[in-house]
């Protein structure tokens, strides 16, 4: 695969491929009760949230595939980090896929709007957006897994900057490599956080004999 190109996948109108997992939404919202407790007003508000955000998501992923050279135990990765946790995750890979996924800025605008006037709605929108981008990642990783399988390759689980001992500063490298701002409109701020806020960056390995399979 061409290692020198950042590819973009656009999932406009593909919501059907990743239906909402309500349980996850409630979990992200901080609601720890049973599902039956999600009743009355709260349920109504979530209904409104879904209705309002119906056309708000713009699902996009950009990614690039790059080789990994293993020297002894050390993987030479295009990041300024020698994270052991990441290395362990990638064990056995001959290539990596670095990707960034986002559901777009519109949901942030809604959140900003409601934060001041209906914080419950803002909170549920936060949760809903988080759930959406997770589903998007799953969908994308599933696609790559199937494509890789055709080449006889398996995928490792994905690993994100900020997990384990992989510092958040790696975000700078990820952004440099993926040109996320140009490709899918994610930008990185001084605190290394992403806008749109409902975005994920991650890396996973591909190899004939990876130690850990994707879940």
């Amino acid at each position: 695969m061409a290692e020198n190109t950042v590819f973009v996948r656009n999932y406009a109108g593909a919501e059907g491929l990743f239906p909402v997992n309500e349980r996850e939404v409630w979990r992200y919202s901080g609601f720890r009760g049973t599902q039956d407790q999600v009743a009355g007003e709260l349920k109504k508000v979530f209904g409104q949230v879904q209705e309002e955000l119906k056309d708000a998501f713009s699902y996009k992923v950009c990614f690039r595939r790059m080789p990994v050279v293993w020297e002894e135990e050390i993987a030479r990765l295009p990041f300024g980090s020698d994270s052991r946790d990441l290395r362990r995750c990638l064990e056995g890979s001959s290539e990596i896929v670095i990707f960034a996924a986002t559901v777009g800025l519109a949901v942030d605008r809604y959140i900003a709007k409601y934060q001041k006037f209906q914080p419950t709605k803002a909170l549920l929108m936060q949760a809903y957006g988080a759930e959406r981008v997770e589903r998007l990642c799953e969908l994308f990783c599933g696609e790559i897994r199937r494509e890789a399988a055709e080449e006889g390759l398996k995928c490792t689980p994905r690993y994100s900057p900020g997990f384990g001992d992989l510092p958040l500063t790696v975000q700078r490298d990820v952004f440099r490599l993926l040109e996320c701002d140009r490709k899918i409109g994610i930008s990185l701020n001084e605190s290394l956080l992403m806008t749109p806020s409902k975005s994920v960056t991650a890396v996973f390995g591909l190899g004939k004999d990876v130690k850990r399979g994707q879940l």
Partner: protein
Amino acid sequence: MNVLEYLRDNLVYLDGGMGTLLQKRGLLPGELPERWNVSHPEVIVEIQKAYFDAGSNIVCTNTFGANSLKFERDELETLIRAAVENARRAKEASAGCQEKFIALDIGPMGKLLKPYGDFDFEDAVKVYAETVRIGASCGVDLIFIETMNDSYDTKAALLAAKENCDLPVFVSNAYGEDGKLMTGADPAAMTAMLEGMHADAIGANCSLGPKQLSAVVEEYLKYASVPVLLKPNAGLPRSEDGRTVYDVLPEEFSEDMEEYIRRGVRIAGGCCGTTPEYIAALTERTRGLQPREVTGKNFTVISSYTHAVMFQDSPVLIGERINPTGKKRFKEALRNRDIGYILGEGLTQQEKGAHVLDVNVGLPEIDEAEMLETVCFELQAIIDLPLQIDTTNAAAMERALRRYNGKAMINSVNGKEEVMREIFPLVQKYGGLVVCLTLDEEGIPDSAERRVEIARKIIDTAAEYGIEKKDLIFDTLAMTVSADNRAALATLQALRAIRHDLGCHTSLGVSNVSFGLPSREIITASFFTLALENGLSAAIMNPNSAEMMKSYYAFRALHGLDENCADYIENIERYAAAPGTGVQPGGGFGQSGTGGSQPGAVGGQPGTGAGQPVGGSGQTGKGSGPGGGQSGPEGSQPGDGSGQIGTGNGQTAVQSGLQRAIVKGLREQAAELTAQLLETEAPLDIVNTQIIPALDIVGQGFEKKTMYLPQLLMSAEASQCAFEQIKKRMSRDSSEQVSRGKFVIATVQGDIHDIGKNIVKLILENYGFDVCDLGRDVPPEKVLEAVTEQQAPLVGLSALMTTTVPAMEATIKLLKEKAPWAKTVVGGAVLTQEYADKIGADYYAKDAMATVRYAMRVTGGEEET
């Protein structure tokens, strides 16, 4: 010959891709291509020469990312100088005999601006300014701003170019498949803003292939009065046998481009994936085409950061409610910097159907310039309507216009020489549609003829500044008909003459006309209809007035502006049912679209099974109740299931209707019940006997983990609605105060996360604290200033990032030194008790309730239970 002169009679060819070619020559992933200007000048020259050889008139310097965010000042200058030199060598080396120009290429700096990002607009202007200054000093022929995917960022770059050189500026945006920029603007909105600021050519590049940009190009050709440029990708990249290939080949590319040139595109080239081969195919195929003439379009238009609003036959409604005149509550909000209240006024008007919002925040005792800038900025963070900036203070006008994301309406100039000389230069610089009042040094003329005369004078003066008639909108001044029974006639007559004889659009503040009369709404609404019939294009009005909205929909239906009367049918019911002005119940914004209250909700429907304690009856701790209170359908009757509420705490067993509404998070009901209670009870009594106890029930449920954050927030919102009623009453009586004490709150410098802070603020307000919210990314000095000014006993600081904890520490240190009386409470995702101790905070609050408990202790309120 300069590029604009050449453009007048010729098609202009741009170059093609650079990045993709550099990658083929070995540019590494993540390597900055601008460095190749110095490390591999021969490669750059070779590529650029190939473009000139292929027939490009304009070749862009290899400076897409050359800005001070990516490079130190010295390296930046070196790289830009080398880049211009490379382009010049390519130009000299090429044997092509076409006219050749060198453009300083400027791409987006890669930072998202506030309010969504953390980068300040003025800082962005500075970043671009530096690149422009260096490039211009190297002698380029024009500035080429390209691939911009955000309108605000585009404005910053264009402003920087205009302020730092006299070169022609071309501006090109990157649109997605949806025909919008990444942050939402469509081509009509971009055209309005960019032409207002005098870009010399505008258009689209990158992101898509030629075919997918069809709709975008159409829009540009329809709206733009300047030449349109197009620089698409060679389609989309895909991987083939380990190589990247683009799916549109030179032949097809040039075919598509020919079609666009025939439709009117005047400046053509390619972006990612295109090579000299593509440009050669393009120039060969289209060289003989006669360029389509660029025609001035006669659109009167304004824009926000997402869309344009056109002044055509269908009337434009400008909401007048953001204005302190005659509004006690609004003035109070301005004095207390209660921006939230002002934003609420904006949102309500948007919901009621306003197309534009007038923004007037003038009050003698406040810094109007600062306030206007802030309010416009905050409005643009959450409302996508264009704004009409309304002030007589020219300095305030400039600050607001500079920051405005789009092309604003400017309210106003008049026939006075002095005013025009003050405001027109601002219009010339920032763009805008100017409201022109037909009065002058001698006041408001009685006769229509004199008003038209003044309009002519304004048109002539504007022309001196290059401001066209289409960017002026005339207000012939509606006077009070009860004072002069011919007043309305003169206004209408002048209106008709200006609209039909002078061919200008018109606007009126219609509400004045009925002043001093009973049943004002019918007079105002009738006058509105008459004015529309006489050629009124826009009205500054109250969208909360059902009569006005009814007239609006009726007029459109009667004037053939509403196909199948669809809008009328869809909307009329909500106004027809509404009892005149002020339909919003309490909470203002947020009653989900349809407006009006839902009568049935009051008083409690006999909900069977209401209040059944779900979640395991008989469990200990459930007795705290809120979990149970959540479960039933809204409007459960008091006494039934809710009898269990609070029993576990030995608290009052029976909740009042208001308490229950708050516990359950019923906003409308809470507002209405409060309004009812206010008939018989004192505001403070309601707070103490109803609202606070209800909040306590929820707060305790939250602390015991029988209720969760979403439920806590729902209740907080409901009580907020109750409070809004109480505040309304209190500002009317302006007697007692509810405040438990001042509480200054901020997210510390460098941190832009304010969700947690906003929740804490809300809960604190619920408990009666007077919260001064400084927002996010607040420098220590600003916190100190607020604490000192208000003599606040409490300061809450929030931080989400480990990287911003030092800023928190610095703020605390400054406060300890200069405002030792103030207790500091800290909170946020990264904080722990240990951290809090280390940085010298007085208290670490793990959540909103903990903050409330502490604040009550400090201010000597009741002890926690």
